[in-house]
């Protein structure tokens, strides 16, 4: 939603700046947390070194998203600060401080948990985890030993977290018929979310959200996720109970809980772990904190040994790439290169968006035939055709697809691709492959076969995936299928 404020002032607001600012706050948070974790002695460089190393290690993970219009950094900031607040509360408990000093920190942790839900739906699990940790801390702080008294702050935590996120759930409920779109279709009347779609979405998570590059079978995915969850549960129990880890016990349990939930509910997809990376890194460094007290040389060697696999051996190439990126960015900022040229160089589909913005009527509704067709670049209403992630345009039959497009009042079809490769149906049935060209033609026109814009090199989803699944053919020429399928829309 923060992007909306910038975009209210002008359409092409550099949304990456919001992410950059959030990234800076997150890096400062990591540094401050480290200063708190390592006791400071007069003249000691250990806390500062510890904090600096933690920031240095976190930066490569966060950097990419500090320039993108994503939301993981925001979620990461809320989660890190929720863990931070719980850690301070834990320190108060260990010092035997008064409860009036602890309760505000629990409230803050619950607020941040709620805010993490506003950034991304899996934040609901953060609310639950924070409440569980508040309960645990409350048990530890409760001198009377009353079970109900220790539960009260946890319930309050859940209530605060849910109240913070409630406007989003209500919005979704009013809009789509369920507070958590597209789920609860069996008990609620949810728009465009058939049981088949929910099954398809689950399949998508199975196929695409667990190490997609490894091409695992669904059975392997389940085994891997199960083993990872079992390991995390054992690790959290073992390490969490150690006397030596007592000072940071809430942080360890929080991190293990977050990763457990992530793997159990979604899968093993590296970007989804980004919000937890700062805390995981800080805990890992804390476990080897003695290294920082030995000798500066040890620290340097330790730092180099960690940084080496991250690309220190490719330093000259990295510097060259950085300089090139800086010069490119400089050209855009100082307007030696236009926004149009910058986008056209990087986005194969951009010429199509530009053509649509210049030529289509203002009330046109454009059906985007591919996933990375960049809906945000279109100054018209757009429809996504992704097979896995929507149910408003279905692909059981041509008639059904046409009826859906008519119902959605789609006036223009975005593309026809002439693909040179067919998807690998046998292993994954996913249909993400490179295509040589992507072209556009208006749907309602007296010259339906005339290409009006074209671009090259893109990835294909949506229609292609659907065709791939429909055709069930392993050696077909995808281009032929596309022609047959999409020509069917011609009036």
């Amino acid at each position, binding site marked *: 939603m923060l992007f*909306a404020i910038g975009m209210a002032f002008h359409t092409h607001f550099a949304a*990456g700046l919001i992410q950059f600012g959030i990234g800076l706050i997150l890096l400062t948070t990591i540094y401050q947390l480290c200063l708190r974790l390592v006791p400071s002695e007069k003249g000691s460089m250990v806390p500062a070194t510890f904090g600096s190393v933690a920031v240095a290690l976190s930066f490569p993970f966060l950097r990419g998203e500090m320039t993108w219009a994503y939301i993981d950094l925001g979620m990461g900031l809320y989660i890190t600060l929720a863990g931070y607040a719980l850690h301070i509360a834990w320190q108060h408990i260990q010092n035997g401080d008064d409860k009036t000093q602890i309760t505000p920190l629990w409230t803050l942790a619950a607020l941040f948990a709620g805010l993490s839900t506003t950034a991304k739906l899996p934040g609901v699990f953060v609310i639950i985890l924070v409440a569980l940790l508040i309960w645990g801390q409350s048990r530890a702080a409760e001198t009377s030993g009353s079970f109900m008294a220790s539960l009260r702050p946890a319930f309050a935590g859940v209530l605060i977290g849910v109240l913070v996120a409630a406007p989003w759930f209500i919005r979704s409920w009013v809009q789509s018929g369920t507070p958590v779109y597209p789920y609860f279709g069996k008990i609620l009347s949810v728009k465009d979310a058939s049981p088949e779609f929910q099954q398809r979405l689950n399949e998508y998570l199975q196929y695409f959200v667990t190490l997609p590059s490894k091409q695992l079978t669904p059975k392997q995915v389940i085994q891997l996720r199960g083993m990872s969850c079992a390991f995390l549960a054992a690790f959290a129990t073992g390490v969490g109970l150690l006397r030596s880890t007592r000072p940071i016990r809430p942080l360890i349990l929080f991190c293990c809980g977050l990763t457990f939930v992530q793997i159990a509910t979604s899968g093993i997809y590296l970007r989804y772990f980004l919000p937890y990376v700062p805390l995981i890194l800080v805990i890992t460094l804390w476990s080897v904190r003695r290294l920082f007290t030995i000798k500066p040389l040890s620290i340097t060697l330790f730092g180099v040994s960690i940084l080496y696999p991250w690309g220190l051996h490719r330093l000259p190439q990295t510097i060259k790439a950085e300089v090139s990126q800086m010069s490119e960015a400089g050209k855009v900022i100082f307007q030696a290169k236009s926004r149009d040229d910058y986008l056209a160089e990087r986005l194969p589909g951009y010429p199509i968006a530009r053509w649509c913005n210049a030529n289509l009527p203002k009330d046109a509704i454009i059906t985007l035939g591919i996933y990375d067709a960049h809906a945000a670049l279109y100054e018209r209403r757009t429809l996504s055709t992704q097979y896995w992630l929507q149910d408003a345009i279905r692909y059981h039959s041509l008639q059904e697809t046409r009826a859906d497009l008519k119902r959605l009042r789609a006036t223009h079809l975005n593309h026809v691709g002439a693909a040179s490769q067919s998807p690998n149906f046998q292993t994954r049935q996913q249909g993400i492959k490179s295509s040589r060209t992507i072209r556009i033609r208006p749907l309602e026109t007296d010259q339906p076969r005339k290409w009006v814009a074209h671009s090259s090199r893109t990835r294909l989803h949506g229609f292609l995936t659907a065709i791939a699944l429909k055709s069930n053919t392993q050696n077909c020429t995808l281009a032929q299928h596309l022609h047959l399928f999409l020509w069917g829309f011609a009036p």
Partner: protein
Amino acid sequence: MLDSLVLSKNPLLLDAPLALLIFLLSGAIGVRVLRRFPLAGISQIERGLFAFTLGLGIVSYLPFALFALHIGKPVVVAGMFLLLSVLFAKEQFRIVRYLIEQARNIGQLPAPTKIFGAVFLPLLLVTFLQALCPPTDPDGLHYHLTAPQFYLREGGFFYAPTFLHLN
């Protein structure tokens, strides 16, 4: 969007100050809210981090509320944001003054921090310049930016068929 009213198309002159204003307003609101929390045993920087983050969450509800009421046209969102900025000007001024004071004390930072800072400052600068460029990331262009664009154009939330992430 208020494109026709925009004085400069240069992201360094327009977007960077605008983003700074968003963060300053967030910090200002967060500071005021955090006054209600009797937080003991935390440093001023920690308090600032809590305040900024809390404020970011609160500020994100500004366009949300306007979209929910179906009055979220660009002129209203921008106007309300500027109005809030004026209302919280005093706190923002204090934050800026505090940040300047901190910047002056940079020489007192511990040596390891200064060394790491010197190494990472150029990287941060490159990252900042990249952040000023138009976003080209797939998910961002598919729905993270599409959602606010849709809502600003319509002035409110609406059911967007085929966009799972917008519903």
